[in-house]
């Protein structure tokens, strides 16, 4: 039986997220909206799973239109119990972050994690490494309660793997088996979140290709990590946040 016989293409985002249960831990890829799975997030907002733990670089965009599909939207819908992110508050006083209000009111928990530690914790989860030492955050309040250990005279913190139930990712190109390619800075968290997750849902920008169309040397996420893929339809049906943003102000 060939991989070509096992298409992972799912017809709709609604179908892709249908079985996500309350309480799931979900990693959301993307950096500055690029590589962010906005269509899957919108479907999840509609699906309504609650008590979610959301792992992502940030908790949503600042000063965004109300319908923007990001963690801010899930938070407003009351679906989020906790976030694990490198940004949990706006970085300028003038910015409005939808998440912040809920966090400040104590309605949603936030674990702030340095971006490199977040990336490494996800990578460790995918690599069967339960814990590792990092120099990041030593001597800061984030080190409180964490084990500190010296190697060669320098201090390091013990940090733990961060496995997730689901990863929502966004790729440029895919074949039907789920082999993925990203374009430029779209790659960001996508490959490591895919490796950290039990189940991976990918939204894909280009028409999905037959198996074998992508050179095996040029695959960024092997299809063995990917479970469901959905083609992003053209706007306005599909969300293309990083293109909507152009031209820049």
């Amino acid at each position: 039986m060939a991989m070509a016989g096992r298409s992972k293409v799912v017809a709709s985002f609604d179908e892709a997220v249908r079985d996500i249960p309350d309480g799931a831990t979900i990693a959301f890829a993307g950096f500055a909206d690029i590589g962010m799975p906005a269509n899957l997030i919108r479907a999840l907002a509609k699906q309504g799973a609650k008590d979610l733990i959301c792992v992502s670089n940030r908790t949503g965009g600042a000063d965004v239109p109300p319908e923007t599909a990001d963690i801010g939207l899930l938070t407003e819908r009351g679906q989020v119990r906790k976030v694990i992110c490198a940004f949990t508050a706006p970085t300028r006083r003038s910015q409005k972050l939808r998440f912040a209000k809920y966090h400040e009111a104590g309605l949603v928990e936030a674990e702030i994690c340095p971006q490199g530690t977040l990336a490494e914790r996800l990578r460790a989860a995918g690599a069967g490494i339960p814990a590792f030492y990092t120099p990041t955050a030593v001597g800061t309040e984030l080190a409180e309660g964490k084990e500190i250990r010296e190697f060669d005279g320098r201090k390091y913190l013990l940090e733990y793997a961060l496995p997730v139930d689901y990863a929502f990712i966004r790729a440029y190109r895919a074949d039907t088996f789920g082999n993925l390619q990203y374009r430029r800075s779209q790659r960001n968290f996508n490959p490591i979140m895919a490796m950290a997750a039990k189940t991976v849902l990918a939204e894909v920008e280009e028409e999905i290709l037959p198996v074998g169309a992508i050179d095996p040397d040029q695959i960024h996420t092997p299809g063995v990590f990917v479970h469901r893929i959905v083609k992003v339809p053209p706007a306005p049906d599909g969300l293309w946040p990083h293109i909507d943003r152009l031209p820049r102000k």
Partner: protein
Amino acid sequence: MSAEPRGLTRQQMCDRLAMEFEDGWIVNLGVGIPTLCSNYDFGDRLVIFHSENGVIGYGPLAPRGQEDAHLTNAGAQHVTLNLGAAIVHHADAFAMIRGGRIDATVLGAYEVAANGDFANWRMLGQKGGGIGGAMDLAVGAKHVFIVMEHTTRDNQPRLVQSCALPLTAPGVVTLVATNYGLFEPKGDRFLLREIAPDIELAEVSKTTGTELIVPPDLRPVRLRSRQQR
């Protein structure tokens, strides 16, 4: 920040730090003011810009209308790629940072202390914060440069004896450019290495939270022309 602060412009502050970059350096620029460092004209020096989202070797901002929808630097600016650029994923981008491959980082800050501590991730009274990649850069980069206005909006010093805000990292800052000059943390005081051309020493002293070490031959901040974009 209020109105237009006196002394150096933001671009001049960044130019002065960029002047420190040596040939072959790999440099990571923080979000906001630090990104202006990439406007400096490095002449014969090769300086490679790295960003946390895995872009190694990005170039100038893309001209309006020619942005690549899949490409930004860590500050969400639509940059271009220089010939020879390479893309890696987020864990590899931070492997480079922690692994000592970044020669210098330029970051913004709320406060820098005379012992090299700095704080740039949580504002006063804020719940949560925005760490991003700053804590990794602060411990991983060989040189940590800070660029910031010399005082807060309330005219309080940002160069202080010890940070009141939660630290990004202790004891790592090697050089600070403010609109008033170029400073080096020296333990209990700052060394004023160079002063902004139109600023009085008394004004710098008054608005700095520690005593200053002032060299007998205090020079004005060196400034050179920058590339026009």
